[in-house]
């Protein structure tokens, strides 16, 4: 069973690697950001699988923290980094 979990974890890691292509290609900043956000989900899955495969229960806590904070970067991106001051002001 640990072997299978490790295998799936490796597979998910390769998934992330392939997904990097989308960050590189874009074409728009939101594309890149959504990809990074979804890496968080994959990372949680990898950590949970590793926690079970290596019987390191502490990694579940790492997954928990990652799940909690996965959105912080995205929120910062939307509210602070990628906004058009003029357009936003207009809508209000």
């Amino acid at each position, binding site marked *: 069973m640990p072997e299978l979990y490790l295998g799936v974890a490796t597979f998910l890691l390769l998934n992330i690697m392939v997904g990097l292509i989308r960050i590189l290609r874009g074409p728009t900043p939101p594309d890149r950001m959504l990809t990074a956000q979804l890496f968080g989900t994959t990372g949680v899955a990898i950590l949970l699988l590793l926690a079970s495969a290596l019987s390191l229960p502490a990694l579940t806590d790492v997954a928990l923290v990652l799940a909690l904070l996965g959105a912080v970067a995205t929120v910062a991106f939307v509210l602070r980094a990628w906004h*058009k001051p003029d*357009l936003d002001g207009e809508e209000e």
Partner: protein
Amino acid sequence: MASVLGWASAALVLVGAFFFLAGTVGLLRFPDVYNRLHALTKADNVGLGFVVLGLILQAGSLLSAFKILLIWLLVLASGATAAHLVATAALRGGIKPWKHR
């Protein structure tokens, strides 16, 4: 009994991996940011859900099973919000939704 649980767990984890793969394919193949958002958010969260189900079957205690389930719910909530935010930002930023021609 134990081996039945083991097989079920393995199957669920593999199904989860398949959904992750589907999400990645969607990420690479879909034409615009809105399509990709929808594909990736849904597929990856379902994939994580299956992985979590598979791991819960193997969890040693009720407490750790509960913790894993909580993680999934958290990812669902923040993933959905993040998708909403990115889509809103993209629309406000003037990225037009893709139309089939």
